[in-house]
């Protein structure tokens, strides 16, 4: 019995090693088959709020502030307090550049109804727009849009991906 157990252990260890190898194959196979899945592409193209907090408006007059991303909790559209300073910098830029136009795009994670997620993304875009408008920016400079869960940036079916997808993107269209 003891012997059987230990050979079972070795067997399971072997399976474990095979599994590790298989996981790579699965990842590889999946990205080859349907492209864009897997964590290696999940975070590309996203600006970081911390980086942005250091931006000096006066030093950056000729260029729109770096495209900005704000994140949200599941099924919520409350802005993180820590993001408000960043949004104010965007507002200051827009106020200083009345010709500048910004698209505020709301997004959600992949869980639930597609059309309900469109309304959730919309509420997220709206809260960011409201803060910008409170700073005196003309509503004419703002276009709001919700993609719901149609434009994810991370493709895993886990909280790591969900967190990155629940976001509002600011995209400058004219400067």
């Amino acid at each position, binding site marked *: 019995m003891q012997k059987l157990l230990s050979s079972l252990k070795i067997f399971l260890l072997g*399976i474990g090693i*095979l*599994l590790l190898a*298989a*996981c790579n*194959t*699965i990842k590889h*196979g*999946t990205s080859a*088959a*349907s*492209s*864009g*899945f897997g964590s290696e*592409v999940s975070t590309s193209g996203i600006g970081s709020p911390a980086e942005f907090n250091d931006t000096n408006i006066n030093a950056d007059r000729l260029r729109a502030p770096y495209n900005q991303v704000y994140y949200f909790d599941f*099924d919520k559209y409350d802005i993180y307090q820590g993001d408000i300073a960043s949004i104010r910098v965007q507002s200051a830029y827009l106020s200083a550049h009345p010709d500048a136009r910004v*698209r505020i795009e709301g997004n959600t994670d992949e*869980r*639930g*109804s*597609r*059309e*309900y997620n*469109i*309304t*959730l993304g*919309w*509420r997220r875009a*709206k809260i960011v727009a409201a803060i910008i408008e409170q700073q005196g920016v003309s509503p004419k400079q703002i*276009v*709001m*849009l*919700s*993609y*719901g869960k*149609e*434009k994810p940036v991370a*493709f895993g*079916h886990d909280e790591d991906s969900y967190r990155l997808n629940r976001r509002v993107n600011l995209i400058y269209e004219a400067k």
Partner: protein
Amino acid sequence: MTKLLKFIFILLFPVNIYAMLNLELTQGVDKAIPIGLVSFSEHNDIADIISSDLQNSGHFRVVNIDAPQQSSYRVQAVNYAYWAQQKIDNVVIGNTKIIGNKYKITFKLLDVYGRSVLLNKEYTIPKKQLRALAHHMSDSIYQQLTGKRGVFSTKIAYVLVQRDPNKPTKYSLIVSDADGYNSQNLLVSSEPIMSPTWSPDGKNIAYVSFENKRAAIYSQNIASGERKIITKYPGINGAPSWSPDGKKLAVVLTKTSYPKIYILDLATNKPQQVTFGMFSDTEPNWSPDGQSLIFTSDRGGAPQIYQLDIQTGEVQRLTYQGDYNATASFTPNGKGIVILNRNNGMFNIALQDLTTGEVNILTEFGMNESPSIAPNGSMISYATHYGGRGVLSEVSSDGKVKLRLPSQEGDVQEPAWSPFLD
């Protein structure tokens, strides 16, 4: 241990999972009707198509026979004793003749025990209409033996999303036969396409397209491909739903800055707001009598289903089971609603009886969405995850029959079942 080994086996051989994606009946009813199907001809696969249709409805156990001695299409030559011995109640026999570039096809449905002819039909068709004729014959057999109208000749619209790190994501709006074959593009775009929905006459599909980086609702003629813009207001233009008479479209707009439901008269394209307040209302769906709309709203906190009496403006809540209910649509008889239900974080397709309030969860695994019911109410098509991809599945309204549709490379989502098309 057996379970663990099975699990390991699945992980080690992912390729096998992908290979199984074709039309797979994963669960059928206990008392399926046994039916014999004799091959029609060596010239085409018409018997195979009928066989798949009947088998995949979950209501039939099909026994295919190739043996020439059993395959005579002449009733006189049918060996009833043989079929009775096989415990087969009904037999389909048929014949194909080639006349120029046409097929002349005859088929008969026989009652083995009564030794009688239940159906006897003849068709002359262009060769390219073979699949359509096969589905039509399946409908006749299904109706004769179950008493219900079949949906083998209906179609399904869906969205295919193909992501490639080196190219823009490709979104396609596709229409295919109900069995997933014969797929054709209605629209291909590098921006999202959403919420396809059939007009009641089956001639047009309304959908949301984000081309030009803004949402707009379009209506496209399926035969000609011609389309027109229905709404393109700033913000949300979403969740179109045709009224039963085809004259109106319920849509979601953000004219008041909150997502609200509007009814649009298609003759004038003028939207009239029908829900009010500072919350999100979406996914309108008309009752079969055209008097009310059901919709998703977060007015109570989490999304739930509400019903609006269009005449009086009165709103009442319909769903109470689960902390999230959305994407509701009426069953064709109006007695129930199909919903996306979340319980303990699991998203499943469910059917709620409007008289008793009883909710029947029809799916499992919790990654399901976008239910769309067949026009005879027998099956519900929905989107789910399988083998790491988005695929379409079907489940019968009683939850007993389950199958997966064949799928192409990419994620398949948002099936929309057509009405009866003939």
